[in-house]
């Protein structure tokens, strides 16, 4: 699967409170959450995200609380993929579980500026900054996680297992 979109960049240690502030977790609607995404960091970001855009972040993206509202907000904003050299583990699980593509990839954050065109091949893990003409290789998904993604998320897998 190929994804293509413009980059929004984020520094390291972006925590889930910054992704979606605690005052908004009273909602569970991805669209409502998306309208408040990263509000404390950049109040206009939610209006600038175009469907398909890609988040390129530095290390430890998604640290902090377990709130699934964070990946839901990103999904609600129709961001197609999040790329970072490392993710906090609960965020990583949550994203995979709800079918938000998320790639561990070193090197791309350092060369990417906001607005750069990014292209991702989820299967091969090849990540390109088209604007800069640079290519990177993301870590492959472990087999178990790949099967989760292929089945469409954790709940789909649970249902499939129950019907087996």
């Amino acid at each position, binding site marked *: 699967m190929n994804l293509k979109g413009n980059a929004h960049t984020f520094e390291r*240690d972006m*925590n889930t*409170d*910054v992704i979606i*502030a*605690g*005052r908004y*977790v*009273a*909602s*569970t609607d991805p669209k409502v959450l998306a309208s408040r995404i990263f*509000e*404390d*960091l950049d109040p206009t970001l939610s209006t600038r995200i175009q469907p398909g855009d890609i988040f390129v972040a530095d*290390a*430890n993206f998604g*640290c*902090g*609380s*377990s*709130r*699934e*509202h964070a*990946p*839901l907000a990103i999904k609600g904003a129709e961001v197609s993929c999040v790329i970072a050299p*490392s993710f*906090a*583990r*609960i965020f990583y*699980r*949550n994203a995979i*579980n*709800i079918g938000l593509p998320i790639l561990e990839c070193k090197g791309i954050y350092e060369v990417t500026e906001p607005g750069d065109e990014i292209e991702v091949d989820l299967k091969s893990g090849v990540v390109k900054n088209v604007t800069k003409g640079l290519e990177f290789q993301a870590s492959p998904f*472990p087999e*178990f996680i790949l099967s989760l993604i292929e089945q469409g*998320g*954790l*709940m*789909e*897998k*649970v*249902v499939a*297992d*129950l019907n087996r």
Partner: protein
Amino acid sequence: MGQTIAEKILAAHAGKTGVVPGEMVDVELDLIVGNDASTPIAVKQIETYGLLDKVAHPSKIYLALSHYSPAKDINTASHIQLTKRFADRYPEVTVFPEGYGIEHVIIPEEGLVGAGDLVIGADSHTCTYGAVGAFATGVGSTDMAAAMVTGKTWMKVPETQKFVYTGKKRPFFTGKDLVLYLIRQLGVDGVTYQVMEHAGEALLDFTMEERLTIANMAIEAGGKTGIVSYDEVTERYLAGRAKRAYRPTFADADAMYAAVYEWDISDLEPQVAKPNLPSNTVDVSSVEGLSMDQVYIGSCTNGRISDLRAAAAIMKGRKVNSNLRTIVVPGSKAVYQQALREGLIDIFLEAGALVGPPSCGACFGGSMGILAPGDRCLSTTNRNFTGRMGAATAEVYLSNPSVAAATAVTGKITHPAEVAHEPVL
């Protein structure tokens, strides 16, 4: 090859004799925990997939209505309603009603978790239960939903870093200071995907309540969980309290660790985390004198009876500074009642503090103590991220309850020894 505590607990729940880091395992769970912020999404997932009648082991499910307690608006009231309606289908599901307490205070307090248990909770501070020797980790709502249906979850066996403490703690140095010091050394991703194992003779000096604080903040260094080695303090706490059989689990002498640290804590002073990361920690002496607009004492980190005792010992016979709000929130109904019996609530009220009902309250910017733009708050909670307790430009500092109480009295960050000379534990 020897095994760590975490590896032994995971192996036991995967039906294996041993596991190695990196291995994917399917594990049986002893407890599944949720709250009124995370459970609604889990319930909606279960409903979407037509699984409302398929919950596997309802008696393992514990739901605490603690985040908005009581509800602050229609949305939060609806979440509580949804959570209760789900639980109504299963009489064996335990619901802790509004005002009963924060899940990570109640569950150890009531003896619902013990050594050797495997627990997931849809809340990142589920790692708190590592204090009693359990492997407990936070997950999201979808993981919780799947676990409620299957009674199991998947895990990648994590590596472990071991922390061995020696020496003797100084007055007013608590479990909170130890864990803040640790995060100061390791950074907020110092143990990502890994387990912290706490050991060493100095730990004998830390009460179970302090250990719950230490384990609670494992996630603040990115940890999957933080387990305190089973010893006589654990034994005393669990005996007569545990509602199920527990299995003390010990690391083998030849267990493999990703890193081993040995720290002498003898010279350490109370710690304060400055905005906006828990790793931005310094000695209290280097921030003394900084004026505050609010002091918040409570949460699953420091809302237990010993925390309130420590705060009351400082506030007793004194007034809180009129330039700030002081808010005290007992972590559970039992803590509240005990504090009433001991006269602590009177001390707080006499001092001019506001006492709230057991709740997560302002800890995550939920309700009852939200900060205005530019406000500065010294809080006994676990996170000081941008916007965590209210406005994005508000600043949150983290400390132990004695430092918080001393600060409440003077209005500026203060070493408790300057206000009261003898610490109370």
